[in-house]
């Protein structure tokens, strides 16, 4: 855990990618990140801000369209807040808390 980031008012959270999304993020499933605790407009960091932040600061792959379309996660991706569908938690307006686990699952189709 990055305690320095905490002192700066950042939120330590865990972000995980599965179902192939990890390929866009250094081919790494699990990331411990220190998210700025407020967004561009000074409001508390919510999931919409996290998604923008991930695109700008964590994404290494070029295919941004595999992750977001029309300003939000693309169809076929589930967003889980502490293992529950974000639609149970207020969707992209959910305000992040310290140590939250955010999991992005791309649906699979092979069989």
């Amino acid at each position, binding site marked *: 855990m990055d305690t320095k980031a905490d002192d700066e008012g950042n939120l330590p959270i865990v972000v995980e990618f599965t179902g192939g999304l990890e390929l866009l993020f250094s081919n790494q499933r699990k990331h411990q990140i220190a998210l700025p605790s407020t967004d561009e407009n000074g409001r508390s960091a919510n999931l919409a801000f996290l998604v923008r932040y991930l695109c700008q600061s964590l994404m290494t792959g070029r295919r941004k*369209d595999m992750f977001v379309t029309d300003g939000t996660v693309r169809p076929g991706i589930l967003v889980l807040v502490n293992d529950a569908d974000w639609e149970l938690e207020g969707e992209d307006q959910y305000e992040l808390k310290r140590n939250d686990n955010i999991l992005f699952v791309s*649906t699979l*189709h*092979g069989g």
Partner: protein
Amino acid sequence: NWGRSGKLTLQEHTRYGRQLIMPEIGLRGQLRFKNAAALIVGVGGLGCPAATYLAGAGVGTIGLMDGDTIELSNLHRQILHTQKWLGLSKVDSAVEKLMERNSENHYVAHHCNLDQKRAVETMRKYDLILDCTDRPSTRYLVSDAAVLAGKPVVTASALRTEGQLMVLNNPPKSLDNPGGFCYRCVFPKPPPAESVLSCGEGGILGPVVGVMGVLMAMEALKILSPLHPDHGYQDPTKASCDPIPPSLLLYSAYSNPPFRSIKLRGKRKGCPSCSDTATITEESLKSASSDHAAFCASTSP
């Protein structure tokens, strides 16, 4: 539809002895299996193990649907198919192998892929659908048709080192019951075509898809013979036997822990397939009208 039976033969008592003595199954459960019909859509990496264990358990009628033939690159994971069947029908191969293992069951061969014109009609003859297909369009079609036919669906998928499993339309939507959530409740919009990887492109490890296929068989058996305290059996999970929350099981072979159960929102208000304002009907499915056509137009592999 396929005939019913009220008792087991001596042979069957011996064959299924290890299940019969379990309170979760018992004679009641075994007879339910015997009189049940399950349709396996797709006889590949998921369908082969799922069919194998359903046949072993004595599910009396097993429909097998696939229009494909067997290729060498299938054999590492499609465990019913063998070298001498290369180039031949997956369904015929599967029926032969299942007959060798358990000739007590009836196997129904559907030498085709799921067709939107006949999907609902075909599903009506079965009690349960296993979605073992491998493309998004077919997953929407299986779910839509099963909701219309009033049948629960066990759906799973796998790619590379990961698998996913859900139980849909359980209990089925009917006049008395709003029914469980459907595939469209979870994924209202289909993914952009370019974001979808097939097993051919992404790769797949045999045991990964194998685990998901066997888990599908287990979920199918649970649906075909549900636990009923009032049938003289005390539910071992009584304390937690509130309706099982809508969930998605994730398997990731190289992660620790390897399994994760995700809580889903469940039924979606205004779902075009399963809500009380549903717009997808048997007619619209057949005529491929509305936006449904976009994902279901191509159901050939």
